């Protein structure tokens, strides 16, 4: 047999192994949290606030963390989109291809992308001390927004760079301004925006270190921006470090909830993406 066919076979084998590995990771994570978390899963878990002695195994649920996470992720995703979409269009439509500013911007976001969330948390904490603020929902939202903006910008930018030049020209040649042309570009990269949003939500909802110092933790549902807020990752963290097995089980149940939320968001996101890509020009 010729060498090139052997190489072909080896690479095919490697690809299959990689795919199997990924499925194995996902499968084992799911099995672990389902096996450990399912016994503690109950209606109370989703609908109740932690009662007195919840953390030593008495009754209650993690509704505080579910609501807190949704508040923080929802608000920071909206803020993140509002801030990053203009950045993406500025570097891709307003600046020229070989613009220095654009490449500096991209580099900056690459650096920001790589900064661990605990650093964002510590940074946010320092600012809050300086301003005399206490841990609050607002603090959490701001830090998580800062955390996900680089993800938004870089993943949308990759798509926006693929924008066909002729598409922009078609719009310009009808007498459109650059601002009006953005409306055309946004339709073309809509699937990319949806993907970027999913990635950002995934990172935001799973982040524990960023919110630890800034949003804090509480057993109640925040009713205003200056109250502290609980989050699911921290609920998992606190319960998992308990010596009591029934509390640890609840940590797994909370992890299962978190995973389910991400799963549902991903499926909904894919469906929306599919709708948006209907008009896309290949």
């Amino acid at each position, binding site marked *: 047999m010729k060498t090139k066919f052997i190489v072909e076979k080896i690479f095919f084998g490697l690809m299959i192994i990689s795919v199997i590995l990924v499925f194995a990771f996902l499968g084992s994570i799911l099995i672990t949290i389902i096996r450990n978390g399912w016994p503690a899963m109950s209606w109370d878990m989703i609908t109740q606030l932690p009662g007195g002695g919840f953390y030593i195994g008495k009754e209650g649920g993690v509704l505080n963390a579910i609501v807190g996470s949704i508040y923080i992720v929802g608000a920071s995703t909206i803020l993140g989109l509002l801030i990053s979409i203009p950045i993406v269009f500025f570097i891709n439509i307003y600046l020229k*291809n070989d613009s220095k500013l654009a490449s500096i911007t991209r580099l900056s976001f690459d650096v920001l992308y790589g900064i661990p969330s605990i650093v964002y948390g510590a940074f946010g904490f320092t600012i809050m001390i300086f301003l005399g603020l206490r841990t609050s929902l607002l603090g959490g939202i701001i830090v998580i927004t800062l955390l996900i903006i680089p993800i938004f910008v870089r993943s949308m930018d990759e798509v926006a760079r693929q924008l066909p030049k002729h598409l922009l020209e078609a719009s310009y040649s*009808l*007498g459109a301004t650059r601002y009006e042309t953005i409306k055309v570009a946004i339709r073309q990269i809509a699937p990319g925006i949806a993907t970027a949003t999913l990635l950002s939500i995934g990172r935001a909802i799973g982040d524990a270190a960023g919110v630890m110092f800034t949003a804090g933790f509480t057993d109640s549902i925040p009713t205003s921006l200056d109250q502290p807020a609980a989050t699911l990752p921290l609920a998992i963290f606190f319960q998992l470090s308990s010596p009591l097995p029934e509390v640890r089980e609840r940590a797994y149940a909370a992890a299962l909830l978190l995973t389910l939320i991400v799963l549902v968001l991903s499926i909904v996101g894919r469906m929306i993406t599919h709708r948006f890509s209907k008009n896309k020009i290949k």
Partner: protein
Amino acid sequence: MEKGKSVFGHIFKGFNRSSQHDEDISLAEECNRAEDAVIKIENLNIYIRNNHILKNVNLTLHDKKITCIIGPSGCGKTTLLRSINRMIDTTEHLRVEGRVLVSGEDIYDHKAEITHIRKKIGLLSQRPTPLPMSIYDNITYGCRIHGVRSRKVLDATVEKYLKGVNLWEEVKDRLHSPASALSIGQQQRLCLARGLAVEPQFILADESTSALDPISSKHIEDLFAKLRERYGIIMVTHTLRQALRIADYVVFMYMGEVIEQGTAEELFKNPQHELTKQYLSGVFS
């Protein structure tokens, strides 16, 4: 002129009957079209990264005529075409000297409004470039950005221009489906209709038939022949036969210079310059 009336006449009839408002619009668009509209290019020099792309071009382009720009690849035909509606502005490291006068107005004057210029001078590119939206929205996109909001007017515009490019019968039942689903020939007609919907005076066509199959290509060519009754058409073409078939005026370019220009009959039957003779007889292409 008779031919043009018959093409657009029946469209206008249906159009005018519908309402007073529509009538005002067709009146307004007639007024926009100055009778003596003409493009004059004076001493135009274009440099890109210090390469001298266009060398001292002087040209007059006529309204309601088809002007074909011919010449070998890389001779600056497309650059010349793109300089007429300032689409060349998107090119980096560009330097433009000289003037391009459209109805007496210099489009390279710093006071010139670029969107207004491009509205007046439409561009049909080599490959069809439908916008990522429905067929209906593709046609109305230009009208909307120029301020038309009334649903009735937009509906009428879509019908009028799709009929104008003989696409109406093919798409009237799926106006709201994506434009990208059309065949490439249909897409090119859609792009032409989209360009016409903003009521330009001139249409620039950059080898607009070269990416199409022979039948679609003929469709577009026939449309140009009809549209010359209302618009000035400036087309770059690689096919001499096409220029022979439809050109009123021909401009021959070589290495960034206009070598010869004149009516199609003069230039094809009696070329003056040696290079033109050689190009026409196929010595180079």
